[in-house]
């Protein structure tokens, strides 16, 4: 069972306290952008996801803890969490990810 570091609780907690919440950094278009989007573009935002093999940015929810959503870089091949960071922070760069591995 994984240990996941919650960036809000600032500690590692067991996996059972968390729930996966899909791919990260998919921003919901605002009302104006929505109205300008074709059906095609909208369905891409709605349904098309990366399904990435390797270091994947994804959302997690500390539902049995502080109730906060946060982002994580997790290797989908090895299931290792490389890092977690607060909602709203930028997607980490390759350099930042490499640094977090050390």
């Amino acid at each position, binding site marked *: 069972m994984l240990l996941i570091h919650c960036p809000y609780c600032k500690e590692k907690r067991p996996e059972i306290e968390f729930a996966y919440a899909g791919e990260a950094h998919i921003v919901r278009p605002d*009302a104006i952008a*929505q*109205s300008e989007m074709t059906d095609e573009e909208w369905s891409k935002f*709605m349904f098309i996801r990366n399904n990435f093999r390797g270091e994947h940015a994804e959302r997690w*929810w500390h539902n049995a803890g502080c109730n906060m*959503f946060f982002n994580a870089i997790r290797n989908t091949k090895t299931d290792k969490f490389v890092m977690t960071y607060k*909602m709203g922070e930028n997607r980490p760069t390759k350099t930042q990810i490499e640094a977090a591995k050390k």
Partner: protein
Amino acid sequence: MKNFRSQTGSVINEKEVIKFSFDSKIYFGYRGDTLSSALLANGVHLIGRSFKYHRPRGILSSGSEEPNAIVTFDRGEGKITPNVRATTLEIFEGLQVFSQNSYPNLKFDIGAFNNIFSMFFPAGFYNKTFMWPKSFWDKVYEPFIRNLAGLGPAPVNEDPDNYASSYGHCETLIIGSGPAGIAAALTASQKEGRVILVDEQPEIGGSLLSSSNKKIDNMSADQWLSGARSNLEKSNNVKIMTRTTAIGYWHDNFVALSERLTDHMSEVPEGKVREQLHRIRAKRVILAQGAIERPLVFNGNDKPGVMLSNAAQTYLNKYGVRVGDNISIFTSHDSAYETAFELCDAKVGVSVIIDLRKEIDADLLAKAQSRGIVVHLNSSISKTYGKLRINSFEVFEPALNKKFKVKCDALIMSGGWTPSLHLWSHSKGTIKWNKDLSAYIPDKAHENVCCIGSCNGNFGIAKALNEGNSVFENSKKYIVKEQSFGTGVVSSNIPSYVSKEKQKAFVDFQNDVTEKDISLAVQEGFKSIEHVKRYTTNGMATDQGKTSNLNALEIASREVGSSIEKVGLTTFRPPYTPTTFGTFVGYRDKELFDPVRKTPIDAWAESNSAIYEPVGLWRRARFFPKDDENMDQAVARECKSTRDSLGIFDASTLGKIEVVGPDATKFMNLMYCTSWTSLKVGNCRYGLMLGEDGYIYDDGVVARIAEDRYHVTTTTGGAPRVFRHMEDYLQTEFNDLNVWLTSTTEQWAVIALNGPHARDILEPLVEGIDLSADFFPHMSVRLGSICGIPTRLFRVSFTGELGFEINVPSHYGLALWEILMAEGSKYKITPYGTEAMHVLRAEKGFIIVGQDTDGTVTPHDAGMAWAVAKKKKDFVGMRSLKRKDLVSGMRKQLVGLLTEDPLTVLAEGSQVVLDPKQPKPMKMIGHVTSSYWSESLGKSIAMAVIEDGFNRMGEDVYIPMPTGTIQAKVCKSVFYDPEGKRIHV
């Protein structure tokens, strides 16, 4: 009876004689014996019958890898455990065990006819044989498979034992307490940090317990072990756990241990925990699990009396038992010679060694000859003889094409060694093939873990001790006097003059898989080892192929004509050894297995003969039968009383969320397609929540308690996901809004009063609220008190009658309910359950999200386009509602159905067609979502989603059923009081 005990074993206490029974026959053994050592001491080799062919089987090994010697362990009173390995079961006074797969008895077994007809059971025989005719399935094939499936009998009674579980933490977890594990523990005990040393056996020591002839640092191995044991026991940072199996290894060094606490006791203290699951989180894990000897795959290798060389050595040194008086050896590895010499030195008769190799170490040969053992090199065994136990075998010398017979009462074999990689592989460590060892050994670790000793390919006590030491950078070197572990070859193709077709050379003893089966699987096109495994079932029995996987792999790669590395190894999966369900269940048994969520008023329902139904995690009263009413009669009465006078309903399970903050209205406007801006404080509104995909996600009445405060209700089952949905948007998309969400589902008890007298009963009880229609109209909320209890009183109705929902702090719920029941007697107050609630709402056409909608229904499809705000700039689901597919005409729409025969009640879920005479498969245009008998209307009513339903008002549709086709007419879905007069009184 002859006694096969030759000396004192290292774990045997001869002062304590123990009486036990096997197949109801009485035997004696000593304290320290396992069932297998005690039976061997009594000269018993025949333990059971095999699974598929019912062949007589004996004891192959001396440990938890045992595939053959499995028995049923019976302690009475439902305490039956099937498939227990005789090699790990400790005997105790009064132990009763039974053989398996034998009828009428072990020596004469009717099922053995399978052996004669074995040509009908080749690899994949399930898939091939049980195909057709279809009619054979129920009567012939299924009973046959059921009869074959499984090994021992499953217990029929409830397990009366107690099980426990706990969490544990340590810096170092050492799994396996052989020389490597003990050396590591000794060094770790000198350092900071908690150490847990785990072993599946009753005492620590591993192979040291059968190494009495070896010397460590000038002490006998026994002496050294007892010194090490007492040092570890004295260390206050070391915890030793015996009779404990590490069953699985998961991420971040999370290891599950199963500790067996009572199965070895003759008297189990009342209430004592039988097994305990320990979930250990370790900073570092050290695996010292040892290695498992590999059988040789030759014709007749499964006869009782044929066993692994290491097992014979263990029975001799550890238990003082010789496995025969005239033993022969068949080997391709040096380590069997050590067994031969030790047996010889203990005055056990060893006559010949048959060695597959052309040449061996000269020193070994000399040692054998000096003991009078005849060694046949470059030789093989082509046949074994003996019905219930081996009595002789035929040697085949391929170079000379010579064959001759040798008498024996036991044949011990060694095909080399397989390091135990099970837990290493659970932890996702990679493995690599080592040519010199002909074995897979650990490669790259995925966790903070290492393998030491023979599970790392470092065989022999010296290497194990010193590697155990060095993991903590301890420079001490142990000096060990032992015979060199030696080398061997792996032979996947044992020479024989008997054609492969005619051989019975077993690979997987427990599942009766032969070399021929594996060859056949490859010939039939199964090239991947995972496919070969599933097709032949090799390695899929309770022993998980501990003795068979490598042999199967060797044979499969030989047949595929590829290298072992290319063919690959099957996946290791937890648990390492069979584990009782009780261990996994732990405390979560009986009422804790799946805890029932009860409302504050549940106790009243229970004492008033409620019949319950599960709704989400809740149990809810479905109806309250009076006298001998059935459900239909009770529901009809409950509905009628509610419409005629007064019904009372426990609505406490409704999901409730308090939405508070300066931006609460903005937030609500974004989360619901409903508009909230115009909702005045003190008013309620029906809220429809959509997913971003535009489909109905949830619904419920929302009350505006203050400018900045909403009391939101959700469906009973939807409460958690609605809360999550709101939190998600609030935290990640609308995070500029100043809003707080609190789940208040369990803070409020909710009592719904419905019916013409709903106001009359409340009038004398409520303080601070004017209940009159003018001041407190339908869809409004007031704060006040009832019977002195603070309340949020809603005037809402899910029945179409005058209705109130009284919210009080949950601990007042039961008291208030009881007062209302007493006060209500003058209005013939009738408690109703969820079934009547469903009928009453369906009569009004009110939907239930999840019943009348299925996640593909838009507000327009449900006939609720009115609930979608037209002027809002944005809300969740807004853009999707404009998608072409969601606005096109041929969508399924929610309508009412009235059956031609008003007495016929449609089945929910049944399919609707336009033309019942069309050829099959018919075009289905929708299905029935809700259907009830309406007592108030005197006819059946139904709701259905039907293609283009709104344009089909008055059309006839048909519902084909097995008993005949039912005709119905499409209508509006509001059946009762369509003008809504009753609700507004």
